[in-house]
């Protein structure tokens, strides 16, 4: 996926310049305004507007990811249907009509995460530094949503425990996808700090009060 940064006297002109440079229609790109710029006055010159324009994940990529997952699931002996959606920068693959849904998800989502990891690897095979990566999420039976709700509850409990006891709280070991979500949740909570500790299977998040060493007794 290509990304460019372009400036122009106004945001609109910057967008026009960018579309010409990247050679794509408006509906195929995502525009991020970095700086609106200011209009100059008689005495002062204005500052230019700055934008970042990146190519949207194309339906071509969606089909490529979907076909890969379809083949893997068929070879695993799982009969099902796969559909894809494009949401912002992410290709969302959904698996439907799985006879035994548990097998696809696995303990704490291990199988689903493994599929997601391999698809991302496959889709970014020819990725080079500086380019935007293709991001693919794999879901079935709304597992991701359910897991996120559960993690949110877990984090809220832990945060109130940190505040009442004043001591750091260790969460259970989690996979990278889940840890990332926890860190993002904690970022919005004032006065709480989160770090990951441990290796491999035991890597887990520790929550503590800000300005306090995250040492667990």
């Amino acid at each position, binding site marked *: 996926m290509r990304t460019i940064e372009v400036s122009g006297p106004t945001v609109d002109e910057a967008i026009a310049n960018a579309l010409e440079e990247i050679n794509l229609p408006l509906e195929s790109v995502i525009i991020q305004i970095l700086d609106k710029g200011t209009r100059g006055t008689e005495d002062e010159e204005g500052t230019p507007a700055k934008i970042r324009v990146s190519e949207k994940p194309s339906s071509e990529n969606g089909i490529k990811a979907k076909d890969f997952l379809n083949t*893997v699931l068929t070879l*695993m*002996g799982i009969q099902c249907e796969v559909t894809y959606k494009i949401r912002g920068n992410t290709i969302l693959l959904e698996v439907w009509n799985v006879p035994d849904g548990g*097998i*696809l998800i*696995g303990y704490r989502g291990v199988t689903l995460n493994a599929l997601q990891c391999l698809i991302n690897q496959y889709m970014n*095979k020819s990725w080079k530094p500086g380019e935007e990566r293709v991001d693919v999420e794999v879901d079935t039976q709304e597992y991701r949503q359910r897991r996120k709700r559960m993690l949110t509850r877990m984090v809220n409990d832990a945060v109130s425990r940190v505040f009442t006891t004043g001591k750091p709280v260790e969460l259970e070991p989690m996979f990278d996808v889940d840890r990332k979500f926890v860190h993002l949740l904690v970022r919005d909570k004032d006065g709480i700090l989160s770090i990951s500790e441990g290796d491999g299977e035991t890597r887990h998040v520790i929550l503590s009060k800000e300005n306090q060493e995250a040492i667990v007794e």
Partner: protein
Amino acid sequence: MEPKLKELVEFIAKSLVDSPDEVTVSEIDGEQTTIFELKVAQGDIGKIIGKQGRTARSIRNILSAAAMKHKKRAVLEILE
């Protein structure tokens, strides 16, 4: 629907490497456990193992899940 474990390993490996023609998988059947030996081009080993073994772990997870569906055990060995 029967899982095709050997083809599964082969398809995943071929999708991830630069030289898919050099991917070979051999199957060693045991009483309860089947061992799959995966061989790829020298320069592709990193692609199969991944950062901190992440890719290899993912392939193993998927292989075990597929094997478990048929109450079997499968082990993946990556040959250097």
